[in-house]
């Protein structure tokens, strides 16, 4: 098993942290992992993305040019990567900020109103946590709900908003009906 993931959005949406938390879950599972941020000029232009690879084998290339999973937090990110997603791959879309539907029929697309759910359960900055929850539901092979939650608690255990953040995670998790 090898999964290449691209998490993309604009600066401040927590896409790099989102990728890192997925890496931690996969690491706990004993998988080989890499995390590669965009550090180039696009970062200075306000958009950010990271490539994550989780594999049962040693990771050769850490670059993800054809993702198995795309998490798009805003419209420019969706436009940039949607055509690269492999056939049969999955796309998680932040429908709070992206008002279009994907017309590709060969991929599984999930629309999650991440900002709305984040506002409802915690604060707007937690939209990445909602997506993390949605990703967790769809990727039982990377980790169980408890394993994803454990990493979240490790990251935010000392935060005053801990309970709200966990609630945002569960909101994302429940949003996906499979």
């Amino acid at each position, binding site marked *: 098993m090898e999964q290449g993931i691209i998490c993309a959005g604009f600066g401040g949406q927590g896409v790099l942290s989102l990728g*890192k938390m997925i*890496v*931690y879950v996969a*690491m706990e599972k004993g998988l*080989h*992992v*890499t*995390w*590669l*941020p965009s*550090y*180039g*000029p696009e970062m200075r232009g306000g958009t950010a993305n990271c490539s994550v690879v989780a594999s049962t084998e040693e*990771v*050769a*290339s*850490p*670059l993800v*040019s*054809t993702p198995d999973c795309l998490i798009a937090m805003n419209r420019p990110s969706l436009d940039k990567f949607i055509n690269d997603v492999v056939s049969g791959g999955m796309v998680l879309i932040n429908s709070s900020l992206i008002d279009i539907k994907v017309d590709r029929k060969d991929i599984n697309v999930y629309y999650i109103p991440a900002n709305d759910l984040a506002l409802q359960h915690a604060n707007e900055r937690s939209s990445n946590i909602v997506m993390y929850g949605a990703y967790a539901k769809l990727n039982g092979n990377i980790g169980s709900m408890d394993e994803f939650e454990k990493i979240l608690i490790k990251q935010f255990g000392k935060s005053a908003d801990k309970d709200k953040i966990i609630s945002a995670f569960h909101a994302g998790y429940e949003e996906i009906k499979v």
Partner: protein
Amino acid sequence: MAKKLFKGNEALGEAAVLGGCRFFFGYPITPQTELSEYLSWRLYDVGGTFIQSESEVSAINMVYGAAGAGARALTSSSSPGISLKQEGISYIACAELPCVIVNMMRSGPGLGGIMPSQADYSQATKGGGHGDYRMLVYGPSTIQEAVDIMYNAFDKAEQYRIPVMILGDGMLGQLMEPVEFPPLKQMPDPSTKEWATTGTHYGKDRRIVNSLYIVASENEAVNIKLQAKYDLLRKNEVMCEEYMCEDADIIITAYGTVARICKSAVKALREKGIKTGLIRPITLFPFPTEVFHKYANSDKTKKFVTIELSTGQYNEDVLLSVMGKKPVEFYCRMGGSVMTVEEIVNKVKEVY
């Protein structure tokens, strides 16, 4: 020991400390800055010294001074900053002092860009500054390998009294991977450092750090001595990975992070029935010439394909090692663009 998730730059900083580095002199530059940032606090834990110098020229000359006094000194930068350090590196090479230099290459020429590149290959492996000198140059491809190399880099530098360069690129510096760190290294007895200008309390002879030899015969003797050292490196220090080469019709060759993309391509090509292998030099100087000889002379090998992020600098060494015995195809990207697995697969299919 449990593996920790570390960024390449920071992992190199930690490995340097564990390997005995106690002095760091440098000036920040993307995509290497996290290394100096990490050492700015980490060196204090072990009683070391961190100085952010006013320029790269100062940094390398601080390394020169510290090395001359017997210290384990490190400097790091990225391409334009490494260019500024060349004069100092040449002096250190001639004075036969040990030090470690990290270059996380970015694209050039000039100030260039901040994305990954391998365009400093010739500068690193053929000398770089003026005069006939070499460094021991490593091109790690994973963070764990970079850590293991850095951990022993000061030992190698002192064993040969030579500048050691770790040649990475922006991707290696920015990438995060789980790594396992070795234990804090016991420092060698300073009295064994016969070059160190520590006063005369370890011996009676004056110790002189110098790179000026006005008399031609004296300077020639210095050059002969240096060349003998480089021959010793060629004999003893070559490191190279051969991946699935045994039955390969096509052998891809690349180093550093690019070799990882090639490794994915080898797997993809084998799934399509094209028997492909990979030669990945770990030391770039000394170059694994004999590994190339072996496959160039083999009836099995049909072709080599060189892949690099520069316009044939690495390929020149490949060509010299293959010696015209087999065709060598070439594919590169430049200026901070990085090839995908698919591009390499297509190139191999095109020449197969």
